[in-house]
């Protein structure tokens, strides 16, 4: 049996805040606008961008409040632990989002494709619908609609991008060391280097997409290869951009001298996110580009 008595510590509960409602409105505008937009109805695009701007305002406002509270020292160790654990489980959910796309890739390549090629007990489908189709990867499927295409090689830009992203992980860790020994200058330079490397990565990625569309005829319409290639790399690229924005915000705060060896949750959150994006890239490099 256990019993309770008065404890000593006081808990911290934050003041009420308008930002969640703003977040809801912005999310609603964005999805509503998008649903209209992709169906070419009315003001869809405008509504979407309105929601997007509101989203940006919301993030700025919400995080400003949190930063202000943090700087005025109302948070205690428990709040900081809550933030950390929250970020951790958020990344865990993101992992599963990416795993679904990798799972789709594996399923389509190793199970569905051989079937279409007449292997196994579904051979009849092949003979009746797609006889003559040979299951090789990469493929745009048994009835391609967008002409010939070339797959993206691994050892050009992708390999370079791998090196870039890995070194950005290293510079970020270098910045983290600096933070731990309270070397503000090294911290700032480390962050700048990381952001710059991230932006170079995004630039190369954009170049690669243009190259794919222009020279290789590799588009989203290129059957299952095009679908998985662009979805996986595209969602990853999107996460790199989000991560870079987070790091930029952290850089801004680092310049203002917000971080100390014992108080730098925002830095850690952005760093974890960045490393997560890094790891996803390694998996992408191996399974999408290389194998």
């Amino acid at each position, binding site marked *: *049996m*256990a*019993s*309770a*008595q*008065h*404890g000593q*510590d*006081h*808990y911290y*509960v*934050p*003041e*009420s*805040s308008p930002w*969640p*409602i703003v*977040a*809801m409105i912005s*999310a*609603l505008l964005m*999805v*509503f606008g*998008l*649903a209209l937009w*992709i*169906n070419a*109805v009315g003001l869809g695009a405008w509504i979407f961008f309105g929601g997007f701007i509101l989203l940006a305002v919301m993030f700025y406002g919400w995080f400003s409040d949190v930063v202000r509270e943090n700087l005025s020292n109302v948070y205690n160790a*428990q709040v900081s632990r*809550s*933030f950390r*654990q*929250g970020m951790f*489980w958020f990344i*865990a*959910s*993101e992992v*599963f*989002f990416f795993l*679904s796309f990798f799972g*789709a890739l594996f*399923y*389509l390549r190793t199970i*569905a*494709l051989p079937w*279409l090629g007449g292997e196994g*007990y579904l051979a009849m489908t092949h003979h009746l619908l797609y006889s003559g189709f040979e299951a090789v990867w990469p*493929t745009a*499927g*048994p*009835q*391609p*609609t967008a002409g010939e295409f070339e797959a993206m090689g691994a050892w050009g830009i992708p390999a370079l991008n791998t090196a870039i992203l890995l070194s950005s992980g290293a510079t970020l860790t270098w910045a983290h060391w600096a933070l731990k020994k309270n070397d503000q200058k090294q911290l700032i330079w480390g962050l700048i280097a990381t952001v710059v490397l991230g932006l170079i990565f995004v630039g190369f990625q954009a170049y690669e997409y243009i190259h794919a569309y222009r020279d290789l005829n590799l588009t*989203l319409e290129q*059957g*299952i*290869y095009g*679908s*998985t290639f662009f*979805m996986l790399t595209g969602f990853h690229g999107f996460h790199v951009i989000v991560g870079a924005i987070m790091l930029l915000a952290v850089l801004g705060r680092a310049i203002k001298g917000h971080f100390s060896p014992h108080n730098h949750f925002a830095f850690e959150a952005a760093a974890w996110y960045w490393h997560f994006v890094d790891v996803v890239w390694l998996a992408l490099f191996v399974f999408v580009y290389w194998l």
Partner: protein
Amino acid sequence: MTTATHAHADHEHHGPPSGLKRWLFSTNHKDIGTMYLVFALIMLFLGGASAMVIRAELFMPGLQLVQPDLYNNLVTNHALIMIFGAVMPAAAGLANWMIPLMIGAPDMALPRMNNLSFWILPAAALMLILSFVVPFFPGGGTQINTGWTLYPPLSLQVGMSMDFLIFAIHLLGVSSVLASINIIVTIFNMRAPGLRMMQLPIFVWAWLVTAFLLILVVPVLAAGVTMLLFDRHFGTSFFIAAGGGDPVLFQHLFWFFGHPEVYILILPSLGVLASILPTFSRKPLFGHHSLVGAMIAIAALGMIVWAHHQYTVGMSLAAVKYFMIMTILISIPVGLIIFNYMMTMWRGAMTFETPMLFTVAIILMFSFGGLTGVMLAVVPADMQYHDSMFVVAHFHYVLLPGAVWGLFAGVFYWLPKWTGHMYDEKLAKTFFWLHVVSFNITFFPQHFIGLAGMPRRIVDYNVMFTEFNMISSVGAFFFGISHLLFLYIIIKTVRGGEKAKARAWESAQGLEWEVESPPPHHTWTTPPTIKTA
């Protein structure tokens, strides 16, 4: 077992802000819990209304009220509204109200995000309702006739309403993931000093397991419907065989979410029962630790059995066998929970207030649904049962007793705590009997017409099924009406009634009964210290 010696209201703390701001800008777990519960109740009536139209249409063979596509859209909406709008938010409402009280925390770990998780729901509900409304407008495209499973290729052919639905699912997913993160962090980080994980009430454990399931599987659903969106609008071929894709891939993604989802729906309710049983049996809960283990086992096994929904789609024999065996294995931990609950009642000094009545009914009827589940899990048998009304009967027997009644039981059990008033026991018992009897009249006959071959999701049927469908529909109307009584009881209790003590039920255990009824706006602002003796 934990008890606290002091109810602690912190009087130097301000009360709730007044007016609309209190609800819009809330950071208070009790207010947010209330909003979740009210939202769920509204959705319950909305989903119920679509079910009434479905049953009215099925009262007789032939087409009477609705056209086939509209019928199927109602079926789709009924499922989605009930699952995502009623059951999950209601369970989240209980979590919000009770977890902080039960673990001696002042609030959820991330109170503002908590408010966001709730307020995304009305936005999602709006998108869901729009998906239903849009086809009625000129140029609005066709109705969503796929059922809640949204299988391609049909879902690729539906008009723009499907896009509204896809985005509604995205929003629901965001809400669930944020709420789950909050619950996990709250349980790990906000327990009163000295309260160890293994001392936590089973309700808290059940929600912890549920939250993990949500974090793992909801992103997969989000990814699946995102691929659907891209196939619909941006020329990808994930689910199109001509481009090398496979419609069955969507089924795998959907059920990788969908099967764990059924445990997401029942686990919180089964957790509620673990609070109720000891109170009305006047005995400690039987096998606390083994219940924790069983719930973890259910979650783990539940992640690797999804394709038992796809037996007839043409998987390899090896895959089908694997999924059959794993599915049947789940009955072991589920059975363990049921037996533990029966052992808790064994030789107890039992009384049958409404929460306990529901609990006993759950144990009986949920087990029955579990048995039809084992029938469905057997591949050669399911070749016959699949997509028949038998499946409909099965999942209503697990979902209503397993999920919904557990929530009702929890609402009656904790209503005195929330409102400070005892509910009207006589009316509540009337509700119980009306509800449970009409439930059985509605769904029991569906087993037989299903076995005799009536398919689900079809608006018309062979005349040989008429009598049983009529019985089912009549039962359904009484079933629907019973909820008005439920609503009346709730409103009556909120407005007044016999004053509830802090410990509203004489032998109730747990920290939530140490604070006044109703609790002050802020509770446990000073953590109770838990001493284990």
